[in-house]
């Protein structure tokens, strides 16, 4: 884990409130694996006070890429970064998605949940066939599609709620058929909580190895504050930042 000052090499607005940053951060880039995240300091002043967790889209030393959606004041400040600015980063943090060689893996990404799965496909996609299921509200919500086409994927299924891109509907609507046809051994997912909760229901009892990457509000990102706890089915809490963000889908107590 490094406390590194990254240098913005390139900042790109992708439309729809999504942004892409290419950052020179050699120490973090050297250590990153798919599923890892960073804590980014969004302001030198005291508001916003805390860093913001962001997944790492890709790491190719000395660079890492971040892809984020503007939601509130922290991400808005990040969207103002330009070439030449610097950004304090803590990372790589968290566990990561296991490589699972020789397994048929289905990647399921909702909205900005594409981040760790993109990383996974970039890192491991050339070594074996991967299938990616990618969904969002509409075209503006899926601005990474162009870049995704540069990945080595066996198949790509795209869903949009409004039908503006790919098939119309929620990606969970198409899941059953895809699982039947593609016969994966494992699923790796990331996306809104409601999507993950629904996935947990749909994938239950099929004998697959289902891993999901979770979000939670984070105070520190490295296990010290216990602010990021999520309830598990056993009743105990797990910390998303250092015990996760990747957990077996079945282990989490979904609220919805």
């Amino acid at each position, binding site marked *: *884990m490094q*406390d590194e000052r990254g240098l913005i090499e390139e900042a790109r607005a992708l439309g729809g409130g999504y942004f892409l940053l290419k950052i020179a951060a050699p120490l973090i880039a050297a250590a990153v694996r798919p599923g890892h995240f960073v804590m980014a300091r969004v302001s030198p002043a005291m508001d916003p*006070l805390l860093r913001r967790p962001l997944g790492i889209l890709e790491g190719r030393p000395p660079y890492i890429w971040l892809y984020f959606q503007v939601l509130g004041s922290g991400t808005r400040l990040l969207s103002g970064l330009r070439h030449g600015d610097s950004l304090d980063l803590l990372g790589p943090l968290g566990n990561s998605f296991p490589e699972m060689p020789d397994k048929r893996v289905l990647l399921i990404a909702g909205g900005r949940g594409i981040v760790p799965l993109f990383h996974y496909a970039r890192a491991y996609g050339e070594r074996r066939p991967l299938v990616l299921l990618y969904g969002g509200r509409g075209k503006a919500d899926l601005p990474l599609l162009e870049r995704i086409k540069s990945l080595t994927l066996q198949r790509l299924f795209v869903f949009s709620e409004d039908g503006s891109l790919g098939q119309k509907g929620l990606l969970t609507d198409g899941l059953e058929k895809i699982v039947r046809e593609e016969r994966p051994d494992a699923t790796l997912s990331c996306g809104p909580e409601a999507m993950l909760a629904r996935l947990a229901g749909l994938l239950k009892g099929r004998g697959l190895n289902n891993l999901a990457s979770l979000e939670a509000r984070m105070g520190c990102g490295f296990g010290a*504050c216990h602010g990021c706890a999520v309830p598990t089915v056993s009743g105990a809490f797990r910390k998303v930042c250092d015990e996760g963000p990747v957990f077996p889908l079945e282990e989490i107590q979904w609220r919805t």
Partner: protein
Amino acid sequence: MADLSVDLGFRTLKNPVITASGTFGYGEEFLPFFDLDILGALVLKGIFLEPRPGNPPPRLHETPAGLLNSIGLAGPGSAALQEIIRRLHARTAVPIIVNVCGENDEEFAEVAAIFSGLEEVAMLELNISCPNVRKGGACPAQDAGHTARLVRQVKDRVRKPLIVKLSPNAADIVAVAQAAQDSGADALSLVNTFLGLAVDLETRRPVFANVYAGLSGPAIKPLALRLVREVCRRAYVPVIGMGGITCGRDALDFILVGASAVQVGTVNFRDPAAAARIVSEIALEMDRLNIKDLAEIRGKLQA
């Protein structure tokens, strides 16, 4: 170079910077960031007798320059903490302070007695001021009578120095401070978090299951500094000041109003090496102002 050491009467610290309970985990989380020996001391996350799961999420809510928390004192219980302390002590020589919690007076005394018996522990801090245990935020430190009784009961069972941590939510924090020192507290620490509220218009519910939560961070610094000054004016035991400290200047402000040492809390989340940075900033600032020794400025506010 300036002399940063602090004499608490019962113990000397090499500098006044102590990491605050609940904001520094169990110490080991910060080993990747700096050598813990740099610190004056560290306080572990609050501990109860038995393991506690803590409160359901969300546990944190950011406010402008502040943080509301309702962690609910999640923790492994006192048996597991002893193991953690031994492990930590093997890796650092920094004085370790245990933050003692309890649902009732008996539990406070019980937990205090356990850690009083542990060689690796330097001092105890009695957390009678956590707003996240009972609904509505009530705690013993809101009442001078209860504080006196509790401190006496604990004091009877321990041999280590006892710091009593006060609540800014008391109607009269100075009266509670006096009750604590008169009942045997070896030092006082303040402030714990201020009771605050955040609500969610969408759901029409409080953000936190426990309704109120504790506010910390730079937002509270001017309020904390006033309360620390008020307590220092009446205290005959050392006072450890805290609340919103983010830099060496902030720390020296607390010493200027009379604090012997300081604790550094929320800023550890924003900047994991903050406590180490603050130690050097204090030294640099003292050199700049030609202050040789903290006693030169401690309590020297001219007002």
